[in-house]
């Protein structure tokens, strides 16, 4: 993102791209709240998708606390702020594997209908079609190796591109591709041929 000149209250104009904000927060820590305001909802959504809302209430915020503590180590040469935050969130999710598998088990139970996500009314048909295969999908997600699941969910839920996933997980781009292909293949097998990641880029990119 190109830095923009915005004159914020109290301090007059500063370039406010994420990397600059973090740079300035090195000496002016309170500026870090800008990063929170910009990315909290996105990170929360990702964590809640993997761990449920209760756990996400804490973990999403913890992501930003951890990011704040290591802000002087943020390296813009290695990627943007958003994937950096998703990487930290993914690490924290990894410390809650039990919550995550419990969640997928719950979703896999037949008749355990998830609340409709708001804002998707125009995609009712698709959702109804999806309802029938939810249990298998949830079970397949639970069965994925954690590394493959990280890649899949960063892309499908977090809306990151391959390059951003590589930055977030600090793995080569080729590894992202192969993990994604493997995850996609396993889910497809579990669902008898339907590609469950289809359209994800469009609806959540």
């Amino acid at each position, binding site marked *: 993102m190109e830095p923009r000149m915005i004159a914020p*209250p109290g301090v*007059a104009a500063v370039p406010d791209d994420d990397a600059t904000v973090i740079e300035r927060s090195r000496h002016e820590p309170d500026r870090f*709240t800008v990063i*929170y305001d910009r990315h909290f909802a996105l990170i929360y959504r990702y964590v809640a998708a*993997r761990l449920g809302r209760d756990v996400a209430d804490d973990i*999403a915020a913890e992501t930003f606390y951890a990011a704040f503590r290591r802000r002087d180590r943020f390296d813009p040469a290695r990627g943007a702020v958003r994937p950096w935050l998703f990487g930290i969130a993914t690490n924290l999710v990894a410390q809650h594997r039990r919550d995550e598998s419990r969640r997928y088990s719950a979703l896999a139970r037949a008749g355990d209908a998830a609340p409709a996500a708001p804002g998707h009314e125009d995609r009712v048909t698709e959702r109804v079609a999806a309802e029938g295969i939810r249990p298998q999908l949830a079970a397949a997600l639970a069965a994925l190796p954690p590394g493959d699941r990280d890649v899949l969910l960063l892309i499908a*839920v977090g809306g990151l591109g391959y390059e951003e996933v590589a930055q977030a997980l600090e793995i080569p781009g080729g590894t992202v591709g192969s993990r994604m292909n493997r995850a996609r293949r396993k889910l497809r097998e579990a669902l008898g041929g339907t590609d469950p990641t289809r359209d994800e880029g469009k609806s959540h990119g």
Partner: protein
Amino acid sequence: MVAELLDEGGPSPEVTAKGRDGLAGLTVPVAVRRHARWTKPALAAGLVAASVAGLMTWNAAIGGGYGGEAAPTRSAPTRPAPPPEPLMSARTILLAAAENLDKTPSKGAYWYTRQIVGDQVRPIGADYVIERGTEIQNWIPVSPKEYHWIVMRETGAKPATSADQTAWRRAGSPDRWQVTASDALGVSGKPIPVDVITEKIKSVPVPAAAGEPFAMPASLRPGWTGFVPGAKLTPAVLRGLPTDQADLKSRILGWLSSAGIKDADQRNERLFNIGSNLLAADPAPPKVRAAAYQMLAGLPGMRSLGTVTDRLGRTGRAVAVRRDDGPDGPRREERLIIDPVTGRLLATEEIVLRPDDVHVASRSAPQRPGQVVRFSVMLDARWTDEAPVLPKKRYNVDKNGNPKKPECARC
């Protein structure tokens, strides 16, 4: 499909606000926040008798001067002002500073700085502006195995000018104020989440009185790392920087290019910012500081303000750049105030030239021309082998007072 299966929606306003408060608790340690805040707080104690007390109280609170090891107790305001002189150009001022700077090679385990960072802000409901500050000491270790400690102390708040003081008296001479959270939290780059998160304006108290000193590690990991776009600075990296100004500039431009910063205005602004940090804040060798002055001398738009005084009344020569061109001209000015004798950086200031309309959108306090929205006065800056002197009160430490363990391997 996967996303829909898992979708739990976004955060509730309560959760968002709670997380934000938690973050504010980190950026401004909780106990301190009750008094003021971290980087931009306030001035002297003893405001009740504020009339003349202002600068005198400051200096009493501050103690020794900024003369390096040789003149540790020079008291700034007592220094006679130099005789009137013709206005020097910005280039002359900066080149003279490079020339005058003591370039004896640096020796010491720590780059130690003591400064007061503060700002002027209009409290909620007030028709005057107050000035607040925090004294900040940094021990930046050369060793990557030692921790970078920061010791801070709120220095209090008082009306900014004599006109403000008159208005303050008229208002009953309050000894504490409320400022909007956007001002208190030092600014989101966009309108504060007044409606989005809390549905109301948040505010925090700012007392007139000074606070207690406290310490915290700058990072939960040892070593000092400075961040500039495209590079990670360490004491070793700074030691290896070119001492020729053209080479130094090329090196920094290389960093900026690798970070994708190619626009000329943005590059010049970063050169100014990075160069300014090299003058005193960062642990750079003296010859690199001199090169930084020479590099600044070659930047476009540097203006001379001639002889000025800093927030402590110390006389210096000032150069400035104007930023953020609005429809009626630039909106703010960044100043560097330099000791004409030693070439050392005395202070930096950011001044409002033309207020804009942002405060209307964000509902933060309106600004006025001339308002100092950020200042830093350097009280001490030197290499030392003396270990950090830390007060009992500390944050982000374990029960032994040492830096806490980081949360996880990567963070």
